[in-house]
């Protein structure tokens, strides 16, 4: 299954160049770290799957297996992503570890929106809540709340690094996906501190735009999750992710619309309103 998009020879060469640049970053990472100290963060989404695919190419070059691959299970995933991940895992022989915060899931009785009592959590999770400044006694179990996001993603991520003694982890982040990413670097050392192991985040596809990503998928016939065909552009938790259109993601107006569409209102319109307030 490949994307039904015609890619010109020129564009194909451009995509190959972008991939080459990513490969250089990956080779550099392979030279800097021991193979068993490297890992890949995968979500099943287009960016991390592209990252995984390119890392795999470099592994083939060097006759190495794929580094340990982690995926965060938040307890609110799309069935379609699950199926895609299982298929790719088998086809590419991905050493996949699905990581969950079992302690929180258990306390929430594996039920979305259930109330979790802080005192029912283990010491580590209680310490994490303290670290982020949570002062309540309970919270609803939602993956995309501040608390939920931290416990279900950040904590799980840090625990994975710690457990496997990972020193470098590949991430599928791009400069153009969010203004907050503009200053990200290919290699970023995160210093170790309380509850956070020291590690380097490696971002081989930083330079890809959303359009580059889809053109590369089409040009190199890389498999992708079927949800993108149905109009999803950016995949998060099932209950909070919405379709942006009925068109496949790559046929949407990628350059003039937001990839991560706000759930309430167009921020740009509000910005305009603020700009008109001269005295701000």
């Amino acid at each position, binding site marked *: 299954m490949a994307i039904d998009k015609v890619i010109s020879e020129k564009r194909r060469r451009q995509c190959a160049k972008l991939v080459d640049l990513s490969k250089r970053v990956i080779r550099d990472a392979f030279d800097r770290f021991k193979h068993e100290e490297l890992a890949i963060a995968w979500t099943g989404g287009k960016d991390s799957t592209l990252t995984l695919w390119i890392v795999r190419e470099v592994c083939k070059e060097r006759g190495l297996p794929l580094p340990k691959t982690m995926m965060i299970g938040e307890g609110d995933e799309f069935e379609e992503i699950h199926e895609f991940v299982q298929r790719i895992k088998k086809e590419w022989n991905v050493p996949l570890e699905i990581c969950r915060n079992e302690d929180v899931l258990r306390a929430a009785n594996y039920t979305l929106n259930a109330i979790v009592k802080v005192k029912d959590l283990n010491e580590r999770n209680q310490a994490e809540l303290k670290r982020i400044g949570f002062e309540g006694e309970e919270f609803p179990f939602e993956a995309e709340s501040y608390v939920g996001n931290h416990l279900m993603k950040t904590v799980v991520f840090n625990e994975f690094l710690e457990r496997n003694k990972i020193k470098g982890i590949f991430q599928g982040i791009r400069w153009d996906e969010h203004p907050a990413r503009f200053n990200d670097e290919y290699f970023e050392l995160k210093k170790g501190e309380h509850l956070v192991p020291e590690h380097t985040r490696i971002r081989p596809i930083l330079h890809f735009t959303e359009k580059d990503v889809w053109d590369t998928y089409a040009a190199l016939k890389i498999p992708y999750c079927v949800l993108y065909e149905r109009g999803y552009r950016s995949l998060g938790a099932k209950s909070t992710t919405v379709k942006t259109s009925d068109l496949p993601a790559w046929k949407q107006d990628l350059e003039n619309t937001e990839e991560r569409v706000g759930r309430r209102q167009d921020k740009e319109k509000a910005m305009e309103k603020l*700009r008109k307030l*001269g005295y701000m």
Partner: protein
Amino acid sequence: MAEIISPGCERGIPGNVEMPLSVERLPNGNTLIADGGDEAGFGSEVVEVDPLGNIVWRYGEGLRFAHSARRLKNGNTLITDTTNNRIIEVTPDKRIVMDSDEWGGGTGRLSDGSHLHYPNEAFELQDGTLLVTDRNNDRCIQVDRNGNLLWSFDRELHHPHNANPLPNGNILVSDSDGNRILEVNRKKEIVWSYGDGSPETLWWPRSAIRLENGNTLITDSKNHRILEVTPAGEVVWKFQTEHVDKFYISFATKEGTFLISCTDGHHQVIEVDRTGNIVWLFRNYRRPAPIYARLTNGFFKEIGPDGVPKHWVLATRLSEGGGKVIWDTNNKPNPCPGLQYDRPGALFLQQSIAVEPGATYRIGAEIKTVDVKGVACLLIDFFDSLGGSLYHVITEMPSGEYFSGTNDWTHDIFEVRVPERATFAELRLFINDSGRVFMRNVMMHKV
């Protein structure tokens, strides 16, 4: 336990100049400064400073965000008391001898029935009448000392600032929201202008003065620069500092140097020569708001005696006299605070927090809005070591979602990388125009 990194000081200490606005060099060599006061609305005053920085005279009684002070020929001082919507004349021994609140039989009304609305400048003309810039009425007017309206220019102006008289009888006025400087004659004809309305040329200019050589010196506030422009519209001199600062008023001294008020956080008046060297500087500022080691009382369990959440500051300086903190008492397990506001300015509930330059922080809260006509959001500003904001305009500041209208509790999470020159952050709940916004469970941590 609240851990405080920098203690701040008492609010409204006389002589603590928080936000210098108008500035002029007096014939005796001293400098007269109108201080708009701190972010919470305290400490607005007028100070006269000698060349060594000693405060030799001050007046602060009842002032709210005073924008201008001009020394009159008779030795009195004409003060534009902006948020109080009035102008007053005070004697050296601090007696008020004229108060626009007394006009119209004590209603403060002018002879045309209108009331000053957010005035920001007043000059005395040769004949003893006054030239007033009446910002929110979009006009500059000439009135006598009894409030009789003698002349008014009310076309073409959008939130004007600093109308000042020229020797030829014309008036130079900053059409701030129109991004232009206008010279207007008595017949209300525009005889000269600069700025094509685009922010590239001028962005929110707030003062212009005519120099002896016939050129015009303009404080191009949001472009953070001072421009000298010839009558033909050619820019022949520019001044900018490495710091980001929205200059407010410039003044040409006899010596050919320029006094410039740095409003947007740098808390200082500088005097520069034509080479751009700072030849004199006045700064007497200590930040009143403490800086906390980390976000403190983000769950609002503690309420201060003034009804404001403990460790948070209600910033009213830009609120044009409106707005207050309200509480949603139905919220469980604790009541949570919000802001209620009813006019076009801006109101903030904020806290200053120490941050590590270059680090990334995640900020999150739950936000609820009711009938917000403008915008409400959670935003974060960063400041350099002089207390100047590192962003040009509010729209550049990192923020969560922008909310309008009515929204039930919504998770709002955003990440921000701290600029290299930042020394501390201010996390703010913001609202403009009318409506209510509430927040709860506010958290912030380094990722």
